[in-house]
């Protein structure tokens, strides 16, 4: 059993060669866009080596180096990581290196762990995807620069040095990479460059390498999609349906059209767009538009009803089996003791601080430029082309750095792309248009972490051994009805629903995990660490509960069941040791622990908390141990663990999206509460030294923090919190 995020998608794409469909299912239409991902990846042996100067690295005559990234940067620092990999082998002048987003060439940019047939950022796979590719690009480019110098100077290649952006020869001859780049790029491409040994690395693993984009991001100079000010560019806000599943009947914009600064009000497949000269103008005009919606098929339930239905479904047992090991029924029949616990998880919004947006411009030459946080460039290019009615190769994607993402910008229906292109098209391509969601739009437009219920049951024998574990999960599928359904839904189980549970790491002889997949017009999506956002909480608090029930130390109890999982065990030991797990806690402080693997990275965390008079936890300190293979940028590994801990902590303490008769209650950061600086613990990160190939760190810092804090809460109060967030009124 190997459930792991998007690995099944990878296998699927590796073994088949087909067109697959991006469902750009839209309001009032069934716009399904054919998206061909047929760019073939030949078997490795026969594969010609790509010329690195075409599509990976550009060196200008002024020696500036531009790297084209297959991965988009939403803040996780992958541009810095890819620059590090290229630089390690290319040895350019580091201060002249910058990175922009590549697109439109799946053979060059296809995500390697996903099989290479779709360009996509996700599943914490950016570094793994880039590890060989971008080091090889750097090494090949360097070899070609050296060859060009050898030819120009008529000296043997072996006598030439290339470092820090300069090529030199013992005779005193010297020139820069920029001066050689043009001739190097047209030279033969060596097929067999040798990559550096780890002992030779100067940039990979370098603690002192400053992140290249910190200065512009500390001075307001970093540009995001919201900042675009192309000539004549107009701004639009959307009017989305107030209920999920409602469709547009009609609208009256006569008052809005007469308002100052308003240029047009148009209908798109996803709602009404109000277009004008600026954000303030269109936001005001939007209030003056009256819209009628058809809501027969819309979601009209409230969160309490949905939760009650999920609880009932969990009590019945799952409809599809995700894991079945040993004989669970027999084990429960013989059990000396049975422990049960039910958990409820709310919908969660990603709420990136830059609300979702995209901008488009139809150019005189028939090309369509699309700016945005393009997390799935191949899909967005195809969808933009389809909506515009042009060929995909006429679509130029401008991949912008974004104000956060957390999964939201890899939208399986290309929502914002459809809105931006459809708006500009409805206006007859008369002006470039930026569609900008407000915070309320962002909060209420869906694509949430799906709400989930878990019902867990454990069987213990006479000696307190955990002999059987059962979990029934109830919740919506992310992959179902999307272009990934065939890859990710197997025998009725969306692997994204059960990852972290169906492949739980403990040596338990009898295991059954089953799933009932619910449906609702409320749209769902991957949210930083996806299934592990709820499976790690349910598993790691339940395991902790069992440990206390049998009077065992929570760390020792876990380690005894992790004998075949050395990487889990190692991070658990490391975090426990550094946190002083076996030493007494200071007065009024309580510790909790959790460990989880997600996206092939292993993370353990120990949280140290106190509880205030009203029963609320304050998390003082988190000790985190991570094994992510080779740490390409150790300080960025640390940054992602710190950020993941804060992101996960805010969610389990405070965040929830709730429905009231179908309407989303929370509209802004007053209702949707997130972590703030006064609640951020001190974080200490320990990175396991290893030569294993790098995996990811964007998401794996998130899953353990919730259960670690919940387990500390139990220690402090004797209470198990099973309805999330902690602030849910049902917990008070």
């Amino acid at each position, binding site marked *: 059993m190997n459930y792991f995020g998007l690995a099944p998608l990878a296998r699927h794409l590796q073994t088949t060669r087909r067109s697959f469909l991006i469902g750009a299912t839209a309001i009032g239409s069934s716009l399904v866009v054919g998206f061909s991902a047929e760019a073939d990846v030949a078997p490795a042996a026969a594969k010609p080596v790509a010329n690195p100067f075409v599509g990976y690295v550009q060196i200008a005559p002024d020696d500036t180096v531009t790297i084209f990234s297959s991965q988009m940067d939403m*803040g996780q620092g992958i541009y810095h990581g890819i620059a590090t990999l290229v630089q390690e082998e290319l040895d350019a002048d580091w201060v002249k290196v910058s990175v922009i987003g590549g697109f439109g060439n799946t053979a060059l940019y296809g995500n390697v762990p996903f099989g290479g047939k779709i360009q996509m950022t996700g599943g914490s796979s950016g570094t793994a995807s880039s590890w060989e590719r971008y080091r090889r690009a750097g090494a090949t480019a360097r070899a070609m620069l050296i060859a060009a110098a050898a030819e120009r100077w008529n000296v043997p290649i072996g006598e030439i040095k290339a470092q820090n952006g300069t090529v030199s020869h013992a005779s005193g001859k010297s020139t820069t990479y920029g001066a050689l780049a043009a001739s190097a790029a047209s030279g033969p491409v060596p097929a067999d460059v040798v990559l550096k040994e780890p002992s030779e690395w100067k940039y990979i693993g370098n603690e002192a390498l400053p*992140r290249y984009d910190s200065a512009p991001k500390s001075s307001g100079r970093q540009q995001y999609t919201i900042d675009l000010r192309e000539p004549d560019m107009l701004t639009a806000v959307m009017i989305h349906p107030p209920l999920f599943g409602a469709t547009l009947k009609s609208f009256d914009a006569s008052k809005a059209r007469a308002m100052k600064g308003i240029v047009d009000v148009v209908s798109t497949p996803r709602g009404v767009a109000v277009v004008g000269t600026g954000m303030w103008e269109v936001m005001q005009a939007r209030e003056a538009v009256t819209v009628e919606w058809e809501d027969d098929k819309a979601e009209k339930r409230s969160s309490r009803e949905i939760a009650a239905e999920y609880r009932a479904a969990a009590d019945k047992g799952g409809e599809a089996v995700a894991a079945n090991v040993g004989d669970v029924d027999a084990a429960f029949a013989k059990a000396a003791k049975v422990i049960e616990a039910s958990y409820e998880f709310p919908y969660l919004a990603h709420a990136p601080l830059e609300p979702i947006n995209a901008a488009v411009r139809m150019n005189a030459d028939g090309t369509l430029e699309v700016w945005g946080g393009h997390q799935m460039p191949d899909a967005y290019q195809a969808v933009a082309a389809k909506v515009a009615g042009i060929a995909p190769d006429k679509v130029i994607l401008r991949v912008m750095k974004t*104000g956060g993402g957390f999964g939201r910008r890899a939208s399986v229906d290309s929502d914002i792309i459809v809105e931006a292109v459809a708006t500009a098209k409805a206006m007859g391509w008369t002006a470039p248009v930026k569609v900008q969601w407000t*915070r309320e739009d962002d909060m209420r437009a869906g694509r949430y972490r799906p709400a989930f219920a878990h019902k867990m049951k454990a069987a213990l024998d006479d000696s307190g051994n955990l002999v059987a574990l059962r979990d029934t999960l109830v919740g919506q599928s992310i992959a179902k009805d999307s272009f990934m359904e065939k890859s990710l839904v197997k025998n009725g189980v969306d692997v994204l629903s059960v990852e972290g549970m169906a492949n739980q790491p403990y040596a338990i002889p009898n295991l059954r995990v089953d799933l009932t997949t619910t449906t609702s017009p409320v749209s769902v999506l991957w949210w930083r660490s996806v299934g592990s956002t709820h499976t790690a909480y349910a598993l790691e608090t339940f395991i902790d509960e069992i440990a206390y029930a049998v009077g065992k130390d929570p760390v020792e109890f876990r380690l005894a069941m992790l004998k075949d999982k050395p990487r889990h065990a190692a991070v658990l030991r490391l975090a426990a040791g550094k946190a002083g797990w076996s030493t007494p806690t200071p007065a009024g402080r309580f510790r909790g622990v959790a460990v989880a693997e997600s996206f092939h990275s292993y993370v353990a965390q120990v949280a140290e908390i106190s509880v205030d008079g009203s029963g609320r936890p304050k998390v003082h300190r988190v000790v985190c141990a991570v094994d992510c293979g080779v740490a390409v940028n150790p300080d960025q590994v640390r940054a992602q663990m710190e950020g993941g801990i*804060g992101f996960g902590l805010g969610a389990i303490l405070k965040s929830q999206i709730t429905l009231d008769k179908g309407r989303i209650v929370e509209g802004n950061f007053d209702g949707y509460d997130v972590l*703030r600086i006064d609640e951020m613990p001190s974080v200490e990160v320990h990175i396991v030294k290893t030569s294993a190939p790098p995996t990811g760190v964007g998401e794996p810092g998130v899953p353990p923090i919730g259960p670690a804090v919940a387990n500390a809460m139990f220690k402090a109060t004797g209470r198990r919190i099973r309805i999330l967030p902690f602030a849910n009124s049902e917990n008070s």
Partner: protein
Amino acid sequence: MRITLNGQATDLDVDPAKPLLWILRDDLGLVGTKYGCGQALCGACTVLVDGQPVRACQTAIADIVGRSVVTIEGVSGKVAEVVQMTWTKLDVPQCGYCQSGQVVATIALLNANRKPTENDINDALSGNICRCNTYHRIRAAVHEAAKLLEA
């Protein structure tokens, strides 16, 4: 309506109710000040008005006529230099989107209080949301900046 913007007298012919945020971003092209919530809940649009941190999204231009506005593009002086330097040195930003507001709020804090305690930092910055949760480094950078300013 006239304000002083980053040291320059600036005349504005706009709706008096228009928030400063959209005047800065859409009318004047000063896009370093960010939109995050529009309700003074996230702090991404923090600017200085007469030296005090203010949420530009909830500040109607009519309410600040005659006053001095400083945005991230216009911050200057020793405190601003040290704050931006420590932000860069500690690699505080991840996505960077909230950092204009964080930096401006920190400059205001350190201008008023050269030795902020943990509680002072919480009071000054808990209105500034960072969804990447760089808070751990923001706190370290504020302390580091305070130390450098003391020296």
